[in-house]
């Protein structure tokens, strides 16, 4: 096996024992990128210097991490794959980047493609063009962290960071056959993550296996005085949760999730996965999350409302793209008309409308109330269950272009992931099978807030007793 094909924990062992030189690892990564990137297009601004990144001493021994383009990296362009942030080089690191550097990681100089401002489920909404799914180059890798997931799946990255507002880590992880975790809201600092929806966004790992996810989550987690929504709780050593044991664990299966529109093939793969967990000693029972049907509308009100305000700062005044114009109002209008893509404009308009006078109570305020009900659904289930198991997406990866003209259909594909963000709880996607066409399917495991340990335990046990995570796409 080439070095770039190894998992992070395998490489960490080799680096610690000095069996591998960092230059050789970078060489392998750049070699792979040379070979496959023209097909996958996981990275943006590929003209960036391809070099071995120096790192400070630390347990991660220089191992490079691929970063989504919406996480600020000091001096390294961070554009959210949007024209409006053209040329933006943050003068600061996101807290997660600072933590990675402090742990001795290298920040990979190429950044991962994404839907513009994380608006999307397919990575088709990138200013730089779409990323392809390594398992089927005609299919989408999912989104919005499609670049991160595709890079990891195609061994163009060892591991990566993505961000998840409504499924943007878990769904691309599922579509690309890798592991993706959305941590509890408040577990990981959002400082330096260019905000989409502040009350939903969370940074998390996309990795080749669960152990890598546990290692990376530990490094990036923890209270940050620069983010008042981060929570001051000790971060456990998640590798301690990597036990091969689910005996007696109570697993809830939400009956509302077995809806129409769910691909029967995906359905049977998920059922098989549940049977696997049961065969390993877990107990499963149907549970009810009665407000599930409202999750999509609630999400698209809350997320777009926050986004409309968060994106107001992109106005051409201080940084990024500025359209030529004769006066202020024209500058605002032209800069934003030319700088934002279609989906960004659609969401800004939706959010602006939802917050407008006369509509606020009917939309935003009501959405917040229903959000509380959705959260209470989960609280109730977690009183009696250790975790909830569900699909990540109703289908496997769809074709590029297939849904881009139908935003509503695209929004509905987030149905299994967005409730988790609305409730603020953690969830992981772990490979659990393939469709007949050879597309990966992910299993979603959810736990109560700040119980990432449960996710690692269940996901790791599943992984240890299956082979799905070991399969590689042919490129």
């Amino acid at each position: 096996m080439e070095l770039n094909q190894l998992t992070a924990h395998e490489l960490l062992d080799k680096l610690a024992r000095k069996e591998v030189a960092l230059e050789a690892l970078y060489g392998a990564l750049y070699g792979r990128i040379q070979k496959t990137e023209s097909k996958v297009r996981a990275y943006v601004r590929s003209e960036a210097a391809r070099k071995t990144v120096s790192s400070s001493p630390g347990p991660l021994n220089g191992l490079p991490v691929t970063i989504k383009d919406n996480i600020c990296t000091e001096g390294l362009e961070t554009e959210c794959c949007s024209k409006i942030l053209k040329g933006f080089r943050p003068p600061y690191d996101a807290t997660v980047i600072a933590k990675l550097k402090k742990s001795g990681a290298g920040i990979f100089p190429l950044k991962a493609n994404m839907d513009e401002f994380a608006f999307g489920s397919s990575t088709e909404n990138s200013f730089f063009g779409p990323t392809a799914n390594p398992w089927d180059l005609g299919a989408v890798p999912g989104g919005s962290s499609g670049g991160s997931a595709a890079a990891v799946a195609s061994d163009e990255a060892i591991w990566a960071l993505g961000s998840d507002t409504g499924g943007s880590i878990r769904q691309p992880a599922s579509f690309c056959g890798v592991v993706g975790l959305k941590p509890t809201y408040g577990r990981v600092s959002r400082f330096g993550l260019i905000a989409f929806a502040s009350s939903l966004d969370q940074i998390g790992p996309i990795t080749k296996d669960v152990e890598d996810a546990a290692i990376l989550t530990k490094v990036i987690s923890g209270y940050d005085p620069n983010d008042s929504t981060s929570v001051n709780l000790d971060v456990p050593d998640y590798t301690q949760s990597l036990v091969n044991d689910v005996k007696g664990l109570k697993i809830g299966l939400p009956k509302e999730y077995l809806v129409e529109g769910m691909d029967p093939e995906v359905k049977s793969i998920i059922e098989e996965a549940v049977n696997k967990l049961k065969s390993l000693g877990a107990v499963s029972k149907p549970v009810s999350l009665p407000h599930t049907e409202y999750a999509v509308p609630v999400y698209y009100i809350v997320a777009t409302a926050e986004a409309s305000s968060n994106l107001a700062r992109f106005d051409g005044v201080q940084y990024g793209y500025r359209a030529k114009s004769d006066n202020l109002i024209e500058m605002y209008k032209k800069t934003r008309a030319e700088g934002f893509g279609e989906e960004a404009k659609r969401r800004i308009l939706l959010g602006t409308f939802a917050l407008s006078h006369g509509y606020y109570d009917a939309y935003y305020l009501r959405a917040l109330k229903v959000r509380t009900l959705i959260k209470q659904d989960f609280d109730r289930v977690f009183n009696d269950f250790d975790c909830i198991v569900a699909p990540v997406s109703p289908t496997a990866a769809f074709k590029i272009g297939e849904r881009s003209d139908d935003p509503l259909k695209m929004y509905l594909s987030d149905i299994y992931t967005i409730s988790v963000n609305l409730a603020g709880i953690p969830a992981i996607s772990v490979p659990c099978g393939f469709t007949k066409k050879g597309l990966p399917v992910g299993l979603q495991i959810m736990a109560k807030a700040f119980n990432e340990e449960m996710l690692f335990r269940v996901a790791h046990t599943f992984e240890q007793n299956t082979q799905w995570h070991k399969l590689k796409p042919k490129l």
Partner: protein
Amino acid sequence: MNYQTVIGLEVHLQLKTKTKAFCGCAIDFGKAPNSGTCPVCLGFPGTLPVYNKEALNSAIKVALAFNCQIQEHTKFDRKNYFYPDLPKNYQISQFDLPLSRNGHLIIFDQEHQPKRIGITRIHLEEDAGKLIHEADSSLVDFNRTGIPLLEIVSEPDLNSPQEAFDYLSSLKSILEYLDVSDCDMEKGSLRCDANISLRPQGAKELGVKTELKNMNSFKGVKDALTFEVKRQTELLQAGQNWQQETRLWDVQKGITVSMRSKEGAKDYRYFPDPDLAVFIINTPMISKIKAGLPELPQEKMRRFMRDYSLSEPDAKILVSSKNDARFAEDCINRYPGKDKKNIVNWLIGPLLSEANSRKLELHELDLDKNELINLIGFVQRQEISLLSAKTILTRMIDSRKSAQTLITEGNLLQISDTAQLEQVIAAVIRENEKSVADFKAGKTNALMFLVGQVMKKSAGKANPKVVTDLIKRRLV
């Protein structure tokens, strides 16, 4: 017809905290443009606000001083609008759950009668930057961006420009006591907009509101309001109607000019800022801040009246400035004896007029309090005249010399030596036969005149009491 004036004031107050409201930038007004900024107050992508506890404490202090109810659960909201001085294109402010509500302060009318002015709400928000317009472009200075700002909104309880002025003076006095702001309107650390309308005397409904902006002193506020009262009265008398509008005060011309008439109500699309969690101001926190509040002007005034037997007007003068009150109280305490009337008279009499003529506050005269008390002692022992003492006070402030030195230098000790005085008195009696005759005919005023003449001849040094006795003894 007679009209009633209805005024409400909206004051914005910059808090003088060490750092800005939501980032760690030190607040320093002397800095070069944009050097007092960081990615957070510049609203750079990915940055997050973190609220400043000191600003929050100051805000609670102010709210308590104005007798407000503190909101237990409070939160910050985003006020969304596009303007280049606002780097995020939204202002972090407070909308439906302001920090505090339902307060009041007391002003005194011409007859010293108290009047309660309601305070609708006090909330915390962030200041915007400053635009600098050049010939062919505009520049933005973000140094001011993110400085904590308190918005203090009064009820429409003010019924004259003078009351508005008194409200502002009282507000400023309290704020100075709290030491939370520079309260300087010229420098913009205190800003005031006014809403004014007129209605027929006795009417319940309010008239058409006019918002006044661009006043940069308390006097400016009063002048602008006075102008508006006159303008609107004339319009009403001419039977004219007008629309709600915003007008700017032109201090040069002494008039208000229409800036914009009311467009549709602005939609700021307020919503709770998801970057800042709801926070709780609990009772122990309030009690702690309450316990740390200084004595406020009106409490101090009552105490001065009680402890030093001061009249209300005298006490009011002494407490209007915190530092003056401290200076005055220190003088009063050092002054020997129980009866403090004498030192108080000096403070609000000669001392205050010295301060006024120098455009200073009392404490800024930088007077040695012990020397002041010495000086008063000389007068009390009748060693110098009151007139001389006032001259000495002026010299004392200018030269910082002691009372004793100045008396000696000016040869100002009173003449109480009868032999010396008899000569002058003899001369005065000789030169004023008519007055002597008048006195003998029973006109007591004539005696005063004769004493005055002696004082004049002795260049104010004669002891008037001794002189009076001597004249009486001679003429009776």
